[in-house]
């Protein structure tokens, strides 16, 4: 697998490259600012773009804007956005930006190397990965309905909303996949959502539900 990395802090950029390469992901391009990122995004020698939200020249949200634009130009291009902080606004913009292959994670998730590499692979394969903080803050918002869920169902919903597959949820909760399937069906029934097999669509359904106000 090949990745494009955009990160302005040299230390973090080098660390990220090293970490990805060690896990069998080739970094074909590494850029440090927005103009270079825009050039690099037009190439087609990568399977996923891993971007920092903040990039020079102004150090605000260039990385995110570039990601959103490239996703309208090249729908389905997998993009994983990393940030020092989580904003619901950015999560919503990323989820609304066309189909497939999108992720939004806090930079410190990189610490858990195995989870992080797994997230990169899932996004590259067209999945959706949302930071647990996005999900838990959305869950906090909907206390009313969520009180009807059992603790197991709640945990399942949280994992599902962050983009895990049934198998991954089963492994995390130490239960069988069919038990996970039952939990998911119960959650969808209680929230009045349609069950969907597609991970990405499933995440969208859950997050959309949680964001409704």
């Amino acid at each position: 697998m090949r990745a494009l990395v955009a990160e302005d802090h040299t230390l973090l950029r080098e660390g990220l490259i090293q970490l990805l390469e060690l896990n069998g992901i080739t970094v074909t391009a590494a850029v440090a600012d927005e103009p270079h990122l825009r050039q690099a995004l037009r190439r087609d020698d990568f399977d996923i773009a891993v971007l920092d939200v903040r990039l020079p020249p102004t150090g605000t949200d260039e990385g995110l804007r570039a990601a959103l634009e490239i996703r309208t130009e090249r729908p389905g291009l997998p993009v994983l956005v990393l940030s020092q902080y989580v904003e619901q606004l950015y999560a919503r913009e990323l989820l609304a930006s066309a189909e497939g292959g999108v992720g939004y994670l806090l930079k410190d998730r990189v610490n858990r190397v195995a989870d992080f590499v797994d997230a990169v692979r899932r996004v590259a394969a067209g999945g959706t990965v949302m930071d647990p903080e996005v999900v838990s803050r959305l869950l906090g918002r909907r206390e009313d309905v969520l009180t009807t869920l059992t603790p197991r169902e709640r945990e399942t919903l949280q994992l599902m909303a962050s983009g895990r597959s049934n198998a991954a949820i089963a492994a995390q909760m130490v239960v069988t996949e069919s038990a996970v399937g039952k939990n998911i069906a119960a959650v969808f029934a209680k929230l009045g959502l349609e069950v969907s097999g597609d991970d990405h669509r499933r995440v969208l359904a859950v997050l959309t539900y949680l964001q409704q106000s």
Partner: protein
Amino acid sequence: MTNRGASTTAPASPRAQPGGMALRAKLTLTSLVLVVLTMIGLVPFILVVTALPLFVVWLGVPMFIGALLLLRLWCDGARWLAGSIGGNRVPRPYRPLPRGRGPAAMFSWLRVLLTDPATWRDLLWVLVSCTVGFTLATLVLTLFGAALFYLAMPLLLAVTPPGIFNDPLGPLVVLDHWTEGFWMWPVAGLVVLLWWVTTPGLMTGWAVMTRALLGPTRSSRLQGRVDSLSTSRAETRDAAAAELRRIERDLHDGVQVRLASLGMNLGLVEQLIRTDPERARALLASASEATTSTMQELRALVRGIHPPVLADRGLVGAVRSLVLDTAVPTTLTVHGFDDPADADGGRPRRLEAPVETCLYFGVAEALANVVKHSGATRAGVELTLRDGSVSASVTDDGHGGATVGAGSGLAGIERRLRAFDGSLHLASPVGGPTTVTLEMPCEPSSPKTTPSSEKV
């Protein structure tokens, strides 16, 4: 969205008054009121003057204060009259009175009243009013009365016994029969003409004089401005100092401690890595956890200083993000933030950074109150940018009864706003709904980030 006009309504001009007969009738009536008012005005004046020797026995002090306050009421009446003649309200120039009540606060009241130049101008005004003012008003009244008198001469001669009204212009002209009374009508015409011509001038003269004495002087206006600026500057300085102390404490007790322990853990790992690799691995895992929680702490700290999304997206984007994060379902309405210079319309207008920060934290606090205290099921945020001012209002359908004090955090917002000449309005009747409105003057600045979406 059309916000022009609201702030540009010109103050009522003196010309926009009824002219001709209606104006003169009104002015004559005003002069009558004035003559009566001048008489009444002497009462508080005399009370003030008699209170002065009574200072020897303490009774003089409350009497003096009461009389001065009574005098102020009377002066308010005169201000209102002068405003109605001049077309512009005459503002009250008084310094704010002390908050305390009762005998204990008496001397601070006395001090404020005695040191306020407006007090002495009030007293001076009474003297001027019962001399010059009285003369002006009686002139108008006399002219009007004389006109009536000469017009009514035939009637007067007819109904009264001879010899009472027979020499209206002195012994030179003697009228013997009521029909001769009509000889006085040309005189009446002359007097009416005189009344017609001089009344507006005389009364305007009175109004100008009143405004000069009872309105704020340039120095009292400046004094008021200086007072409010010193207060808000002191508050801003204290708030900034308190904020820095909080940040220092948070860094000292949080991040620094965590980094120190992280360093210790890593030192241990270095030692143990050969002898006890299992324990070293466990220590490394906990070190990794420690960096995550340190990051969390720093994030919370940064959010409290200046939320990154505010720098990225400005007020509108940051408030939108805040609204998405609020536990009570909340809607956002935005007026007047469209940037005419922005072709694709994606970026709302930016304001000066301090203005954005102040409003952002105000809205954040108001929304936090909605979640914590209001019991609301719905809330709405409205951002409005119009010529020269920006406002943010937060409304909820909760149980109301909110106050600016009482730990609601609104007092802090009000303090921040004052530093920008802004203001906070709270409408929260018991039973709801509650609306908090933050408003401040501002000029929009150009976007800090230029759109760089050139299509190649």
